[in-house]
């Protein structure tokens, strides 16, 4: 049980490790208490704990910790580096540390920034991931019963809900043979206090536009992940309007990828009723329709792309950045890639310019990462759908 408790700490509190080291750096007086803590915990832990799993993480964290700490602790660390106990002692002391930061706002000190950047340069990030590893993805489908399809996706602390509603409408005159799809994102103030009132509107619009660009193709509707012509009921008269509404419940970075995945999951959960058109309507009259009670058409979601965001921090780029990592980015590229490996959309954010060759390199990396992501997402969606059917 104790062991479980430690691994829990390890996954959830990586940032506080950095914070401790900083507090340490800035206040030399605290170093004594720190070492004392270390020592006490060291004694405590020697007695009871089985340690295996987190051993490997020692290596990743030790160097960066050492980098951030003053020389004295460094020698202390390296002197006993052979012992796995030390790492635990260190972690344990983190919990005792009096330094507590409130979550929400990203206010990082120079040391914390250095820690994050250094970790990325060494291919081990502050939560133990590699540069191109995603956080575990948790998919739930059918969460909103009043919608035609819905899904909730959790990646670490990021939590988004996506719903699809289908309504009968009229196609626009320029494209009589195509249905309409629109995507709206809403950032709930529960995700961050800064989204209160109209505070979330800017981000909501940015995300909506980026998602439309990635999933809906060009103005003509060509190249969209969703086959728009399959939404037409009577050409020029009746079509399905799909309203995709997303809600950001909790935000810990990488919203765009999570939203893209949630939309894909929600669409594969969507059933559109079969429509029968009464014959005999002529001219300008709207034909009467009969909407089936039993039969529902499923979407083919295999063509819907996933979005992979590569965030550039320093000289390297990472996938699935957390809020802290995103605050250190110089620029980010979101690339939507479908199963065939075609690029369906691309958005660059962030002020700093990128060398064209790096962009090409990033695209090829994104293509590689997207294969794994699509497979993982598909299996998660299938598992969620199976789970829903059973219950």
């Amino acid at each position: 049980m104790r062991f479980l408790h430690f691994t829990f700490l390890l996954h959830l509190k990586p940032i506080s490790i950095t914070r401790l080291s900083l507090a340490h750096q800035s206040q030399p007086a605290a170093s004594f208490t720190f070492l004392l803590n270390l020592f006490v915990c060291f004694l405590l832990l020697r007695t009871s704990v089985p340690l295996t799993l987190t051993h490997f993480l020692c290596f990743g964290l030790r160097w960066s910790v050492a980098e951030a700490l003053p020389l004295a602790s460094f020698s202390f660390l390296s002197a006993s580096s052979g012992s796995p106990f030390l790492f635990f002692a260190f972690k344990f002391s983190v919990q005792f540390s009096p330094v507590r930061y409130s979550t929400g706002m990203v206010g990082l000190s120079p040391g914390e920034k250095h820690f994050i950047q250094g970790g990325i340069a060494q291919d081990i990030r502050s939560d133990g991931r590699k540069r191109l590893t995603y956080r575990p993805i948790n998919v739930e489908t059918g969460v909103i019963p009043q919608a035609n399809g819905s899904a909730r996706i959790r990646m670490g602390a990021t939590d988004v809900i996506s719903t699809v509603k289908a309504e009968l409408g009229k196609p626009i005159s320029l494209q009589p043979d195509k249905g309409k799809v629109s995507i709206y994102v809403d950032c709930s103030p529960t995700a961050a206090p800064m989204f209160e009132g109209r505070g979330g509107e800017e981000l909501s619009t940015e995300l909506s536009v980026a998602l439309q660009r990635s999933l809906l193709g060009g103005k003509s509707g060509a190249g969209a992940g969703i086959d728009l012509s399959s939404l037409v009921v009577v050409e020029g008269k009746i079509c399905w309007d799909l309203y995709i509404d997303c809600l950001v419940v909790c935000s810990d970075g990488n919203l765009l990828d999570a939203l893209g995945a949630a939309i894909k999951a929600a669409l594969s959960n969507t059933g559109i009723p079969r429509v029968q058109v009464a014959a005999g309507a002529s001219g300008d009259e709207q034909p009467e329709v009969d909407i089936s009670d039993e039969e529902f058409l499923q979407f083919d979601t295999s063509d819907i792309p996933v979005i992979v965001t590569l965030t550039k921090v320093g000289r390297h780029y990472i996938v699935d950045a957390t809020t802290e990592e995103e605050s250190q980015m110089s620029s980010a590229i979101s690339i939507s890639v479908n199963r065939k490996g075609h690029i369906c959309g691309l958005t660059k954010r962030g002020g700093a310019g990128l060398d064209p060759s790096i962009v090409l390199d990033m695209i090829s990396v994104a293509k590689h990462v997207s294969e794994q992501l699509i497979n993982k997402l598909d299996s998660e969606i299938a598992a969620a759908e199976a789970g829903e059917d059973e219950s």
Partner: protein
Amino acid sequence: MLSLFSLRKETQRRLRRKNRVALHHWSASKITTGSKLIINILKGTAIVKATICQSSLHSFAFVGGLLASSQNQLEILGPSLGRGARPYINSKQRWRNRIEMEFVSPEGLRLDGRRPMEMRQIRAEIGAVAKADGSAVFEMGNTKVIAAVYGPREVQNRTQQINDQALVRCEYSMANFSTGDRMRKPKGDRRSTEISLVIRQTMEACILTHLMPRSQIDIFVQVLQADGGTRSACINAATLALADAGIPMRDLVTSCSSGYLNSTPLLDLNYVEDSAGGPDVTVGFLPKLDKVTLLQMDSKLPIDIFENVMQLAIEGCKAIANYIREIMLENTKQLEYRRGI
């Protein structure tokens, strides 16, 4: 010729699980204007009668007040009028439906199969938003809300700072998909401003604000599914979230609504019952101190009946308080377990 959706299989299954109720059968799948629709409900024979009215615009059918809420337990889905169109046609027709509708069957069962004094199934969960200082999900039947608490923290806007107590703020928002027909409302409309204010005042009354001078507590509530009683659900969720954030409170404030339809006091109204136009009493209650902190009512009611209806709501609040206490105890046990005690 008009037509209706019947229930999706999956929805039916979900309803059966949640409410122990299902539609027995439709008396007709194709109906014309003015024809009566009879729905049988399992577990008793509650019969709901409603007339079909026709919208001139699209010639689609709507089944009285029932269709007014496609998210309610009976969930009769109909083809919608498109964006922005309201499911109810106009107040006159609503009035007619109200008269014709039977909210409590002769056997004493309500539309969703509950007894008059029965509450919907409630469910709560602590810790839904990882980044917040405290958070909770609260469900009452098909109503589902998330509350997140940030603080106590530094006051963001210095002019609002209060020197001898904490500043409590609240924002209520509804998701676009929370109602039956999709809505796209600008933030901060009058209804949500009013509810924000109500929640803020209720929570402020039970937080020990004088212990945290010059600080700010933010309460954000987000409605995911609205099926009547969102106000109550939001207050209950906010209480849990405040407790989760470790904010000192006088008592756990809980809230519940009750109404009076067909000369019967009803506990915990759902959307259909709420929109029937009868009185709707919402009570916020401090169970330990035995004090009412919130009381709202629409419509009119004789005083002696009002007393009964309010008492019913208070009983509901007490039941919710017991449940919330259980959930918090469970949560504390979990925390204890994680610490390895």
